[in-house]
């Protein structure tokens, strides 16, 4: 490392970003102690009617959906042969790996006996459960993502031989990643198919698994654009010419694809509505909220993406990506919290406590810090000089 970068890092120790991150980390550690001494009751607003709160809605459901950029980008590059997106693969894989690792980390807070998390795989398998399906796939996919991420680590460590072995398995790993992602992204939606009486009919559908899978594609690609936008300024000095030259092309390509997939998602949501003949709910208050989600967070970003691509308007595409990411959060919250237990009186409904929000922020902060730690050290936004054009 050069002297310049060292001083730059030392200077940046008391930036607003670092101070906010430190506050969140300290608050998170305090709540962690409270959680593991007082139980879930001490820190959460969960109760007997509302067993799942934002640690499931945000940390698990949104976390997994927004980490879908890993499989979408690697599939675009290695399976669909869109080689020009190659420079986008490593940031996407890293985001996905950290995303899934943090999902599993956050689950340690939510489940009652976290050291038993391997039980469903290694002790007693409940194969009738969609949660078993989710658990198995997330476990396997986290392993696949780790292996997909290792070439960057091996290049950093100078371990050429093992790096070359892993790179040879890229296609197989990518295919496995897409299979596992298809399964657990959809199964997260299917989790709720067991409770038709608790989820509002506008959000309950036999197609829930398909909805979750298709929307995860939009979430993944939008997250690649969105996250690229966020890291562009602070990480600019680490980005090589290939990354920067291809970045606008990637945004245009992914923008076009997301516009189309969002359009398809809108169509299948309408088909779901028609299949169960739920049109009459649209005139209720729930219907108004449903239309806000469908028009404001599905149709609108699809349109904005399309206009942005036509006009080659990169800022507009970035706004559309942000809106889509927000829309996925809205959808996952609607299915798991807002429209779940819709029939209960408002006094028995759930609203997250400050401690729950703190832990969710804590998890995000750890993710951002880990991302920064890795991208400033390993060849993520640039190619390692020894492996130029090795792909």
């Amino acid at each position, binding site marked *: 490392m050069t002297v310049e970068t060292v001083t730059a890092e030392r200077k940046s120790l008391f930036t607003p970003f670092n101070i906010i991150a430190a506050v969140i980390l300290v608050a998170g550690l305090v709540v962690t102690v409270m959680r593991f001494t007082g139980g879930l009751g001490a820190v959460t607003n969960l109760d007997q009617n509302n067993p799942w709160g934002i640690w499931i809605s945000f940390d698990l459901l949104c976390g997994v959906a927004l980490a879908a950029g890993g499989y979408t980008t690697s599939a675009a590059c290695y399976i*669909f042969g869109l080689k020009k997106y190659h420079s986008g693969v490593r940031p996407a894989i890293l985001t996905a790996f950290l995303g899934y690792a943090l999902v599993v980390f956050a689950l340690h807070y939510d*489940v009652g006996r976290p050291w038993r998390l391997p*039980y*469903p795989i290694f002790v007693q398998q*409940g194969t*009738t459960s969609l949660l078993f399906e989710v658990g198995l796939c997330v476990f396997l996919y986290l392993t696949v993502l780790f292996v997909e991420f290792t070439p960057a680590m091996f290049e950093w460590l100078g371990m050429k031989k093992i790096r070359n072995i892993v790179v040879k398995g890229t296609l197989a790993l990518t*295919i496995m990643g897409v299979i596992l992602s298809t399964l657990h992204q959809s199964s997260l939606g299917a*989790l709720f198919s067991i409770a038709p009486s608790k989820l509002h009919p506008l959000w309950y559908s036999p197609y829930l698994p398909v909805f979750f899978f298709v929307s995860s594609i939009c979430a993944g690609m939008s997250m690649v654009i969105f996250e690229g936008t966020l890291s562009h300024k602070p990480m600019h000095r680490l980005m090589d010419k290939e990354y920067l030259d291809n970045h606008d092309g990637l945004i245009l390509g992914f923008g076009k694809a997301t516009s189309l997939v969002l359009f398809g998602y809108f169509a299948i949501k309408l088909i779901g509505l028609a299949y169960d003949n739920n049109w009459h709910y649209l005139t209720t208050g729930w219907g108004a909220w449903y239309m806000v989600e469908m028009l404001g967070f599905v149709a609108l970003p699809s349109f904005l993406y399309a206009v942005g691509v036509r006009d080659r308007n990169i800022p507009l595409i970035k706004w559309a990506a942000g809106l889509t990411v927000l829309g996925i959060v809205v959808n996952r919250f609607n299915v798991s919290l807002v429209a779940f237990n819709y029939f209960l009186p408002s006094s028995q409904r759930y609203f997250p406590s400050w401690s729950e929000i703190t832990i969710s922020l804590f998890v995000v902060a750890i993710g951002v810090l880990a991302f920064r730690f890795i991208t400033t050290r390993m060849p993520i936004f640039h190619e390692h000089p020894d492996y130029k054009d090795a792909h």
Partner: protein
Amino acid sequence: MLRRTFLGLLGAAGASVALPRSAAAGSKKFGPHPDTMGVLFDATRCIGCRKCEAACNEVNELPAPDRKFDDLSVLDTERRTDEKTYTVVNKYQGMNGPVYRKAQCNHCLEPACASACFVRAFKKQPNGAVTYDASVCVGCRYCMVACPFSIPAYEYGEPLTPRVMKCTLCAPRLAEGKLPGCVERCPKEALTFGPRDALIEIARARIAAFPGKYVDHIYGEREMGGTSWMYISGEPFSHIGLREDLGTASAPELTAGALAAVPMVVGLWPVLLGGIYAVSRRKDKVANEERVTAVKDALAKAAAEAEKKLHEELSKAETAGRRRIEVEVKKAVEEALSAKDEDAEKSEEEV
């Protein structure tokens, strides 16, 4: 006695041999158990005395309640089961005065909790009880999400060893040949324990004998695929806190489609994705080959043209050279001839 023990062992061995096969055959089903037991609750008989609650608390050794069981003012607010209470009686306003309904685990024939549990902590026992095994429970609370009757409760106050708490149908007491605690204590025979089939007969007989007194429906006979605990009432069931929109599909049926899709994805995706990869590779290869051929053709054409041009130039140069020589020769000849003529003229003059 000895012979019976031997036969019992034989039966157990037979059952354990048969178990994997039957489990494989119906891997998504938890029943049916033909001799399943159950309880019939008759809302027209219940007087809301809460003696069943007290009995339940005693036999299950649950913590003492905040307010005593003979305090009937508890009934003024609707309650649900929680981590200290396996059963509650609620009061509802009926057409002719108050009506009471006991709530507890309904011990579904195809339990949603068992279907949802990813460590198989819940089991539908042959005697009808849905039991829970805390020794494998991870505490994910998916059972609570899945239960259509909102029965399982969680020990939120336990930091490291929380359990899911719910009625066991007094399975340990059944094993000893005793009745469930609540059934035994009920002073009004509002609760009847027996084989489920027999309970349905009894319920039908009561409805038939007093057609004006009962709603003509046995709640739990078919709801969510059927339950071991069933209800008859004089009030519509939705008036006594029982949802009538649950449908008859059991929990395993609701998730069967999604589960069935899993092996199809595993089987088809490699073919589909491998196919897309092969097609994109092939397209690249063909495009590359076409480019190479085109370049080769262009090069060949250019070479041929260059050669032709060279040839032409060469031949042009040759002609030009020849012409120049000819001109030179002609010139030389002309010069020589003119010199000769001059010489001749000179000699003529001299002559």
